[in-house]
């Protein structure tokens, strides 16, 4: 097929937008979209032609967890304080048979795990090293408050089962735990810090890891057992 033929391109774009272009033909067209700018223009035009149709559907309110998940994925969760949560949190911290991580004072720059030093992109001013109960490093958390960034690196591959995730929380005396998002199973990720998290990180004493349903806590506060805790130190 000659994809340079404008009429054919337009026909494919229309069926792509309507959704009747499927299977291999859809895949081929999607490749073409990235290669031929005119393709994207045609798709945009058809999308604009037809957009009024679904605007006429009766709206359906999505459940609140959708917005929470979006926030969590983009910014590591936003605080949703509730007075009882702090008490629950503290009772866990005392009563639960948790493996409390050893506080480790590290010097910056740290490189405890990588055989090959990686380029440091975040000059950390708050650091925590999260260990398992055997003292083996699991995650390194580095926050740059000025740049409002937090970098989290998995020191080794940590794979919870399919139904669960490890979620990281900022613990301050005067505030409910606030999520820093789901911990990476491997590799390194960077998340922006909200102004609120930035302020909280500046005065927080510790980080904690809880086990949550896959995708993270459905409530915005820890719901599962706290398995690890680590002191947050100034780097």
């Amino acid at each position, binding site marked *: 097929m000659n994809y340079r033929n404008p009429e054919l391109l337009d026909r494919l774009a229309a069926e792509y*937008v309507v959704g009747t272009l499927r299977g291999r033909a859809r895949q081929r067209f999607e490749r073409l979209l990235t290669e031929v700018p005119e393709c994207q223009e045609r798709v945009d*035009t058809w999308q604009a032609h037809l*957009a009024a149709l679904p605007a006429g*559907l009766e709206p*359906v309110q*999505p459940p609140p967890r959708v917005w929470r998940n*979006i926030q969590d994925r983009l910014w590591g969760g936003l605080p949703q304080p509730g007075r009882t949560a702090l008490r629950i949190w503290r009772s866990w911290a005392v009563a639960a048979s948790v493996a409390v991580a050893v506080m480790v004072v590290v010097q910056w720059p740290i490189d405890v795990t990588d055989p090959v030093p990686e380029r440091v992109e975040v000059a950390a001013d708050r650091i925590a090293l999260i260990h398992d109960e055997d003292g083996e490093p699991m995650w390194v958390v580095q926050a740059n408050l000025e740049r409002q960034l937090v970098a989290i690196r998995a020191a080794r591959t940590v794979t919870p089962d399919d139904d669960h995730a490890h979620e990281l929380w900022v613990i301050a005396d005067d505030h409910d735990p606030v999520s820093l998002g789901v911990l990476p199973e491997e590799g390194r990720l960077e998340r922006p810090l909200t102004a609120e998290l930035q302020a909280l990180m500046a005065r927080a004493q510790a980080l904690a890891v809880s086990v949550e349903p896959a995708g993270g806590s459905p409530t915005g506060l820890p719901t599962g057992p706290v398995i690890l805790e680590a002191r947050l130190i100034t780097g």
Partner: protein
Amino acid sequence: MDFDRLHERLARCRLGDRQAFEDLYEMAGPQLFALVLRIVKRRDWAEEVLQESFIQIWHRAGDYHAGRGSAWAWMSGIARFRAIDCLRRQRESVALDDIEEPVDLLRGPLQEAVRGDGAAHLAECLDELSKDQRRTIVLAFIEGLTHGEVARHLQTPIGTVKSWVRRGLAALRRCMQP
């Protein structure tokens, strides 16, 4: 839905304004959820598609400009493509019992609300199609049906359905062009 406000909020998302993003979600989320739900049919899939769509909207807000159509057209396009991708991943055929024949979406009680996004012009152009052409295009677009699914639903040979879609779209193209 107020399409001008949607546009303004999306423009602010490009500057990293999270409050604008939250407004955008509140304004367009329920409409986009309805759209996605009609395509994927399952609430859990629809929630995931909506979530992924908004994450993409935030990350790609910088790609949006008025030349690409209205903010609603751009956002609904993202949600629709994600919904169709979801069906493709699940490789599950739609249970045809779940299909609702779309009512006249451009003339229902929400007509006033959608008029701002070219609804009136689209309604005129859809009127110029044959009833079968109009019905197949709207079914495929709103319900996310393939040619084969439309054919089964309408108990019509697939070749006939393909030709209704193709000819209907050709007629729409002629009519919609400025």
